[in-house]
């Protein structure tokens, strides 16, 4: 592979802390099995960034393909703007002018080093699993409600370990790291549900107290919460990037984002969009298309297209594997693809030279929405059906539906054709 196809600048300015306090070198990375994972219990954020990430930086510089970067490679193969491309752009590097923009990057002299002496500018901070939602494609590490349900159904044997935020020593250590960074630019928070996680409010207050309101705050909310006191804090920041999680504007969203109700979710979505526009916030609808919702994602693209807000998904869902879009047999995958293609064709085709990587650029938001839709179309058309995922999927939805008293067939009656032969018994 060419160097430009593997290199990413992210390890020189970004890192992530996960809900259980483990560090990741990237918000998009996967984790390898049997890898020693460093935790805030054992090593400070500064030590991890400056020293433990040396190996990743060396591999990047050597042009070595990195297994953990596979999700970005997959996104690029379908024409979806990848995390790598977004991170490169934050350091001024454009793939269509790679050599010159790399050398001209403000980080060029940092790239020469592998042991860093600076602190991250860009963080993803997972605040724990405290969440009032129980999305069917989520997992207990990211939803306390789902964790309770999984325990009850014996789908897990013990609850996930508590969030690192609940340990005062670790929390203070972390806060001290971010407020001492002279180049701090972006903090993106996820949960759980950020708006009901006490640590989110604490961090906002701390940043305000330290006059760090020029740091951009990004967070994602599940459209099940509205909190004026948090909004009052957020309004003190110069820039807020707001992610609004919804899967479809149709009833199947209730099944996917249980126990959310689409009428309420839509009402809160509209409220956020109005509020965000009034305050000049950057907004994106955040989707996680699964076999359950992919047929209806055109409804989200349509809403975003008319509201002039972006649509962003971090990657194509891989875990849980039985939620992947390729669970759908070809007949249904093609139906979803045909519907999406029809929506794409109803819109103005993006300029082929307008290869905007900055998906948050308001002036190109519509062409970016269409590009994202096209990438999903590519995925649906090109990724083969994986029948081996179906038995586990049937087991899972049968178990969870029994507890919830619902059925996928209430929302997708035509899926009976592939669910029944696969062993689905609910009515």
């Amino acid at each position, binding site marked *: 592979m060419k160097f430009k196809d593997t290199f990413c600048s992210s390890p020189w300015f970004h890192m992530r802390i996960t809900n259980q306090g483990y560090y990741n070198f990237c918000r998009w990375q996967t984790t390898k099995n049997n890898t020693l994972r460093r935790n805030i219990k054992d090593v400070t954020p500064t030590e991890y960034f400056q020293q433990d990430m040396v190996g990743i930086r060396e591999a990047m510089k050597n042009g070595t393909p990195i297994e953990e970067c596979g999700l970005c490679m997959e996104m690029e193969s379908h024409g979806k703007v990848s995390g790598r491309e977004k991170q490169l752009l934050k350091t001024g590097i454009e793939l269509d002018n790679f050599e010159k923009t790399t050398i*001209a990057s403000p980080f060029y002299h940092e790239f020469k080093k592998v042991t860093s002496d600076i602190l991250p500018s860009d963080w993803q901070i997972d605040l724990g699993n405290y969440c009032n939602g129980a999305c069917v494609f989520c997992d207990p590490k990211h939803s306390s409600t789902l964790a309770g349900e999984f325990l009850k159904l014996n789908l897990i044997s013990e609850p996930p370990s508590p969030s690192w935020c609940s340990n005062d020593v670790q929390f203070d250590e972390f806060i001290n790291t971010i407020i001492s960074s002279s180049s701090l630019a972006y903090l993106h928070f996820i949960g759980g549900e950020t708006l009901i996680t006490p640590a989110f409010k604490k961090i906002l207050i701390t940043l305000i107290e330290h006059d760090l309101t020029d740091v951009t705050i990004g967070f994602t909310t599940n459209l099940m919460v509205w909190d004026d006191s948090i909004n009052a804090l957020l309004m003190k920041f110069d820039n807020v990037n707001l992610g609004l999680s919804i899967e479809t504007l149709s009833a199947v969203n209730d099944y996917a984002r249980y126990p959310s109700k689409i009428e309420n979710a839509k009402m809160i979505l509209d409220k956020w969009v109005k509020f965000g526009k009034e305050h000049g916030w950057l907004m994106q609808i955040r989707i996680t298309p699964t076999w359950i919702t992919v047929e209806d994602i055109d409804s989200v693209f349509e809403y975003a297209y008319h509201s002039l807000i972006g649509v962003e998904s971090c990657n194509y869902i891989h875990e849980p594997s039985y939620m992947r879009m390729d669970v759908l047999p070809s007949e249904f995958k093609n139906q979803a693809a045909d519907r999406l293609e029809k929506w794409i064709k109803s819109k103005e085709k993006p300029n082929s030279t307008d290869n905007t990587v900055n998906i948050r650029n308001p002036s190109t938001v519509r062409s970016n929405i269409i590009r994202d839709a096209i990438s999903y179309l590519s995925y649906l058309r090109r990724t083969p059906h994986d029948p081996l995922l179906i038995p586990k999927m049937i087991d899972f939805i049968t178990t969870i539906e029994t507890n919830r008293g619902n059925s996928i067939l209430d929302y997708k009656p035509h899926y009976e054709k592939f669910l029944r032969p696969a062993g689905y018994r609910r009515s």
Partner: protein
Amino acid sequence: MKNFYDLPDIDEVKIRIDIDLVVDNISDIDMCVVLNGVILYDKGNTIALSADIGVTDILNLEIHVNNMSDCNSVHINDISADGVNIMPTHNYLAKYTNVSGKDTPTNVLEFDGVWNINTVVPLLHWMHGVNGNGWLLNPMNKKEK
């Protein structure tokens, strides 16, 4: 290029600046084109100019025009960096200080004065901003907005 170490030396990488001017009644005009302090043109009829600047250089281009009258003008037809148009696309970011007192950004110079585009930051960083590429993080400072 297989790895970071294959990148060329920073001093070897240049950006080609092409300047295309269309001049009416050139014989009457006293014109001088200055790029990063180097005079590219001060007389004659050749108006298609090219020069290289360093990959991390600021672009500071001045076009001085004097002895202008009602019957002549200088049109800035195209200024590009490595073939990517800068002017007139981003003409609104240029300054035209002239005797008329009208300093409205323009690519048609009709009065004695100096037309200037100064990117202040390295040209490629400036292009990152004007092309809507979002943040440009700096390891030592806050992001450039």
